[in-house]
């Protein structure tokens, strides 16, 4: 059943609009209700007539949705009544229309009839109306809809809001705010940071070098590479069923369709049927056991992308189910389905069991966080061109070298016969580290099979169904602490949902960050990696780190709530102190988290705002505010994240400089930072430097771009390469002290100085050490208890970026990461079909990343001033991921608000709020009971 809660229909039906429907021979007028069942063949809507309303008419419409705008409603409603304000009675019968409750909009006719002539100021009018409505609202749900309980509660709450709006002047001031919808005021924001003008252009705030191209439409992404002669396109055929055996792939219908060129299955692969050249083999195309719905079974090649996409849907895949798929961590736990290698040894520090046993207080609980689609605006894309001696591959990838390896392995040819190039990527967020190899390998296969250039640009449905996403986590824990909430020991089991394959399992990183910013002397943490029948989940901005940090935040929050203490106080009291050591033996030599916390607490006026929120909460029954402060300690690890190659040429003809490095420009501004460092080190203007596409000729063995540190490592390579060039140039400079740069390099070239240099950044360098990045974030929210809607009133972030190489870029990273996190914690949710295992939220209709009105109303970003990182490259610190970890402060702020309401209704205030805390979850956790509705 398809639900379409039309906003227009609800409103127009409520006001009694009629439609004029015309055929070639006649015109008729129908009500909207009759229109629902009207046969519209050979008919068109000509006009709509809206009747005038009388002066005593009170009309209100409502729409409650998962994000602030551009989303379909959970429930929408429109109400009309004629209200005699002198007698406070309803004249005639009101119209009460609800959408989202059933397949089509419904009217609450019994409630409307009951209200006719009723005096709204009599308390039993409201009580009777609510009881009538309760009986009339009978939700019909679908697998992607909200629960019947929420839909019903919401419908009743909306009517209550309307009731309050009609008699607004007569109601208790404490409930008045329930009658007024959220009004988003003027948004504001501040961005503060320090710079070092003596170091310019390093530390200079500046926009991206390629911004001009990007704003003029000339910036080329993989899908924009101009089409080649004979180029064709490919699309994947996906399995409709999880946990099944493929018994046949039938191209017979497809073959007759326009543009069809070829259908390919695993049998057509000349090399290995595996796009992961490290770890467990992952098939390009499955031929036998199919693990998940959405797994690729075949490829079709056609003349155009649209033809290929359409043909792919016409390929029939037959299968035998192997049983009900395991989809969630709970499913896997029940079935005992784990990977043998969870990705890390348990963490054992001290004696957690003994420490917990000896503690004055013990706190137990669970916490979980779910998945997230990367939502890169540019979906997975590749173009493979057969050439005389191999293949040229353009790929929207974060990792050129493994893309090359995957194409070569699948085609059974030498790596040296494959060239990979990527100029820029239209959003990546970890989704194009390993998953992009798949698309390139499939394109390579199609290019091999046809001898023609093949491009593949996944449509969003395929991208969402086929490609793994953020790894969900679930933890159970027992904590021993003092009466003051000082943590003595933690015993926890951390589960994650890798999907069917654990190649990109980040459970190790989750455990490495499970302490976040808190000192706990005793630990026992056991990892469990669940194997399920969903796509192999992969890196997603702050993989492992974000869930690890959230689990710790969930645990410490639970401690505070259970002990009846202020969570801020408990968090502050347990923060790491300088020179303490983390559970994985990282010495915190430069730890400044307590100072950051105190600075933010003061600059964000947290204390007074908490008092103001408390006052607001006292004055408002159905609106509640909450604040939460969350710290982050993020371990930046260089060990895994190398090597990177940086190659620099100076062109003697005009003195301009070209740089090619192993990182990939995914929007984070790596090319701009590299150019800034080169300009500073060589002492030349920025506009003489250009940064070239990353490729496998210059960076043959380079690691992926990721982990927040690629920019600084490529800057390091650039710094060293430029220093080497300066050394080579130096004797010529000494002999020609007055030479311009152009004259100087020309002289160097004449004298046989090599103006081309390469630097190889690998771990056995001076920079083999890792460091910690610190930050603190405070979020204040206001929730509408009756609906679960949310406004983020203010966010303050203080982030220690060291000496930012480019504060404009780094502030952008803070804002962008935090906002991506807001989507993760608040609005983005995946739903699977329980039987087929198909992802049901596979496009933008049901999947909702934040839009421009979901961001904080007041967004204040500060980079810590005068804080060079003593062990960082040029004093800087990474910034791409840690601010995302601060965004869970929004979830905890919602929790504060819910707790406040629950305290007011004398319900249990100790509960778990898992991610995502959607509008629905927020309302349901408030335990709204219509019997408490009053005026």
């Amino acid at each position: 059943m398809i639900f379409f809660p039309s906003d227009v229909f609800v409103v127009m039906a409520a006001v009694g609009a009629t439609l004029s429907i015309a055929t070639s021979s006649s015109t008729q007028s129908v009500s909207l209700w009759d229109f629902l069942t009207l046969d519209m063949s050979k008919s068109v809507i000509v006009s709509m007539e809206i009747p005038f309303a009388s002066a005593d008419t009170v009309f209100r419409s409502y729409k409650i949705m998962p994000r602030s705008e551009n989303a379909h409603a959970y429930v929408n409603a429109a109400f009309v009544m004629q209200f005699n304000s002198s007698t406070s009675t309803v004249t005639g019968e009101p119209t009460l229309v609800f959408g989202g409750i059933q397949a089509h909009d419904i009217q609450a006719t019994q409630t409307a009839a009951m209200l006719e002539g009723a005096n709204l100021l009599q308390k039993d009018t409201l009580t009777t109306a609510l009881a009538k409505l309760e009986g009339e609202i009978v939700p019909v749900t679908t697998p992607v809809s909200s629960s019947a309980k929420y839909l019903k509660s919401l419908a009743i709450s909306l009517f209550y809001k309307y009731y309050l709006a009609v008699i607004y002047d007569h109601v208790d001031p404490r409930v008045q705010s329930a009658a007024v919808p959220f009004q988003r005021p003027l948004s504001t924001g501040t961005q503060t940071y320090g710079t070092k003008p003596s170091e310019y252009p390093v530390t200079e705030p500046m926009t991206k070098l390629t911004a001009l191209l990007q704003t003029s439409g000339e910036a080329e992404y993989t899908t924009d590479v101009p089409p080649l002669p004979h180029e064709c396109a490919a699309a994947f055929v996906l399995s409709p069923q999880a946990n099944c055996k493929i018994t046949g792939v039938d191209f017979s219908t497809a073959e007759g369709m326009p543009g069809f060129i070829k259908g390919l299955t695993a049998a057509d692969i000349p090399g290995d049927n595996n796009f992961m050249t490290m770890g467990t083999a992952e098939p390009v195309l499955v031929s036998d056991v199919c693990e998940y719905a959405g797994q690729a079974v075949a490829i079709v090649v056609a003349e155009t992308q649209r033809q290929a996409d359409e043909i792919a849907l016409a390929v029939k895949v037959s299968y035998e189910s192997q049983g009900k798929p395991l989809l969630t961590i709970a499913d896997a736990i029940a079935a005992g389905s784990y990977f043998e290698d969870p990705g890390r040894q348990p963490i054992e520090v001290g004696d957690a069991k003994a420490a917990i046993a000896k503690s004055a207080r013990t706190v137990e609980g669970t916490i979980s966080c779910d998945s997230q689609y990367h939502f890169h605006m540019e979906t997975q894309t590749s173009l493979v061109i057969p050439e005389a001696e191999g293949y040229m591959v353009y790929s929207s990838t974060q990792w050129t070298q493994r893309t090359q390896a995957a194409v070569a392995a699948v085609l059974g040819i030498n790596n040296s016969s494959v060239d990979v190039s990527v100029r820029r990527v239209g959003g990546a967020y970890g989704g194009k580290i390993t998953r992009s190899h798949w698309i390139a390998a499939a394109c390579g296969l199609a290019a091999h099979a046809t001898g023609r250039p093949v491009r593949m640009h996944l449509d969003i449905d395929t991208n969402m169904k086929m490609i793994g996403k953020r790894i969900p986590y679930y933890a159970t824990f027992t904590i021993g602490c003092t009466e003051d909430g000082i943590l003595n020991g933690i015993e926890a089991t951390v589960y994650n949902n890798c999907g069917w394959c654990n190649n990109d399992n980040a459970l190790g990183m989750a455990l490495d960050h499970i302490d976040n910013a808190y000192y706990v002397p005793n630990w026992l943490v056991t990892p469990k990696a669940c194997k399920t029948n969903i796509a192999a989940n992969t890196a997603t901005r702050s993989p492992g780190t974000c869930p690890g940090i959230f689990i710790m935040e969930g645990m410490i929050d639970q401690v505070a709530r259970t002990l009846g203490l202020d969570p801020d106080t408990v968090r502050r009291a347990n923060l790491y102190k300088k020179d303490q050591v983390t559970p994985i033996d990282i010495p915190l030599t430069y730890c400044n988290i307590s100072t950051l916390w105190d600075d933010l607490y003061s600059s964000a006026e947290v204390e007074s705002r908490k008092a103001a929120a408390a006052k607001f909460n006292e004055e408002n029954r159905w609106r509640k505010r909450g604040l939460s402060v969350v710290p982050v300690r993020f371990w930046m690890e260089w060990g895994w994240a190398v090597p990177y190659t940086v190659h620099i040429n100076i062109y003697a003809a005009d003195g301009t400089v070209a740089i090619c490095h192993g990182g990939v420009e995914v929007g984070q501004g790596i090319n701009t930072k590299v150019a800034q460092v080169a300009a500073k080190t060589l002492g030349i203007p920025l506009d003489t430097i250009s940064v070239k596409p990353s490729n496998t000729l210059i960076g043959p063995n380079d690691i992926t771009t990721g982990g927040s540190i690629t920019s600084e490592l490529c800057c390091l390579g650039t710094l060293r390469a430029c220093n080497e060039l300066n050394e080579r140039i130096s004797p010529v400079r000494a002999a020609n002290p007055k030479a311009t740069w152009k004259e100087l390099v020309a002289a160097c070239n004449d004298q046989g100085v090599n103006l081309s240099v390469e630097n190889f950044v690998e771990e056995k360098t001076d920079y083999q050490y890792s460091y910690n990045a610190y930050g603190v974030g405070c979020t204040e929210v206001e929730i509408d208890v009756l609906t679960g809607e949310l406004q983020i009133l203010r966010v303050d972030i203080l982030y220690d970026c060291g000496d930012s190489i480019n504060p404009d870029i780094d502030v952008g990273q803070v804002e962008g990461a935090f906002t991506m996190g807001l989507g993760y914690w608040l609005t983005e949710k995946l739903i699977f079909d329980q039987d087929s295992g198909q992802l049901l939220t596979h496009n933008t209709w049901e999947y909702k990343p934040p839009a421009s009105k979901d961001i904080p109303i007041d967004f204040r970003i500060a980079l810590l001033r005068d804080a060079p990182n003593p062990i960082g490259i040029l004093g800087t610190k990474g910034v791409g991921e840690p601010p995302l970890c601060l965004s869970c402060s929004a979830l905890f702020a919602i929790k504060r608000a819910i707790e406040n309401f629950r305290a007011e209704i004398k319900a249990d205030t100790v509960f778990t709020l898992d991610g995502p805390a959607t509008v629905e979850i927020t309302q349901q956790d408030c335990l709204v009971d219509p019997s408490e509705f009053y005026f």
Partner: protein
Amino acid sequence: IVKVPVDITVNGRTYSDEVEPRQLLVHFIRENAALTGTKVGCDTSQCGSCTVTMDRVSVKSCTTLTVQANGSSITTIEGLSDGVDLHPLQEAFWNNHGLQCGFCTPGMIMAASELLRINPDPSREEIREGLEGNLCRCTGNQNIVLAVEDAARTMGG
């Protein structure tokens, strides 16, 4: 397949071609007119990467049929500047760091151009309203709003 003739002016140049009736305008722009500044992001009219103006009114070209644009004048991101100077919006997105990966940028700018045409002096609230059909995953939107405000000031609204 039946094809129908269309005459569509894109950035001042008229393209006379025969297209499938179901062809989407975005594909006409990217393929027939070979202008790749207009992007396909979500295929479903939600992300706004494909926004262009049709007879000066912004449309999402991924949910507009080419035949609907027959006889009309389309402006894409490539046609926004006068050929000499960037449009103030382009300048503003550049100067205000209103982009990161840049994939949503052409659509954002085109949607904003429509907004500023209708309302030369929009409030931030109106800017957010005007951009509600466009998604950006990288920036957090803050600098995009600042860029449109900046452009509005430059354009003397």
